[in-house]
């Protein structure tokens, strides 16, 4: 009998072959969750510049206003919005509420995420850009 290695089992949730909206929502939830954890540590790492005085902080702010950095802000907002909105969806579904509508809820989450990200991106580039 062949036992599947632990790493190979864990990679199973990345495999989207044959999956539907629920599987896609699960994968995006995990990827955005991992992304947000990485961002949290990057954020804390950057905040340490505050202890190095105004020059270090101002230099960072100047870099943070570059188009590439602003685009990364947009990506961050996309991840936060998806994770938060899908979190509400998953909470409801996890309690057995709205299960027959789970696919429509997913597309609703996606639409809201993209709409709110577009609004946020517009604000970021017009105010900070």
């Amino acid at each position, binding site marked *: 009998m062949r036992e599947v290695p632990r790493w190979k089992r864990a990679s*199973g949730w990345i495999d989207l072959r044959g*999956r539907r909206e629920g*599987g896609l929502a*699960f994968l995006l939830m995990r990827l955005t969750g991992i992304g947000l954890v990485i961002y949290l540590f990057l954020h804390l790492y950057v905040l340490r510049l505050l202890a190095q005085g105004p020059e270090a902080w101002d230099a960072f702010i100047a870099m943070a206003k570059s188009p590439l950095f602003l685009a990364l802000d947009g990506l961050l907002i996309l991840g936060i919005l998806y994770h938060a909105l899908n979190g509400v969806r998953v909470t409801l579904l996890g309690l057995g509420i709205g299960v027959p509508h789970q696919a429509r809820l997913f597309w609703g989450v996606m639409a809201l995420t993209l709409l709110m990200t577009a609004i946020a991106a517009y604000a970021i580039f017009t105010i900070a850009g």
Partner: protein
Amino acid sequence: MPTWQLRLLRGRPGSSPRLETYRVELPAEAYLIDAVEKIWAEQDRSLLFRHACHHASCGACGVRVNGRERLMCITPLREFSPDGVIQVEPLRHFPWLGDLLVDVSPMMRRMAEVGFAIIRRDELTADRPLPEGIEQITRFEDCIECGLCLSACPVMAADEAYLGPATLAAIERMLAEPRGGDTARLLTLADDPHGAWRCHSAMECTAVCPSNVDPASAIGRLRRRLIVEKLRRWIGGGR
């Protein structure tokens, strides 16, 4: 008669699995199980696969067809194009025995632990007069223990101790109609870190279930029941 091209995962434990292509002639009205049986009968008698009833009652012929969990006996060939390839692989998250065959005993042990009764009173005939000599009509529970939901569940990929959708749905069913069963033990089993709380609502279990058991909804009801039980204990001061 159209010719169908099947790509089957072949191999035995200890060797690297490989995909092998077979061609079979069958009418479009045939089912995937007919094609696999024909390959076994006419081309390769060493092919391992499981089958029994041929009408979605036994749950034995579960595989992944083009990545999706299906029962071969109710997967009609007409769903596919004769120009394309039908890729058939064994279920995921079970020990692999070879070719399309997996060991479903881990799932069966979990179901046995629940004490899941396979029959219930038939609600469809509840209002009808019973035939002479018949005291009660019973029917099989919907779950045919095919394991498709376990294979489709991404949480099973990360946590092999997870009870899984079929077992949790069985617990919820038993709690709804205990028939003398030990409900406290079932609640403890479901409240385990690898129980109802481990589900991440990927909903794939319900999407692939061939018997409309809807394990995702059952897990939701089970969680509500666990929350109510915990609140009741806290308010009552018990543990």
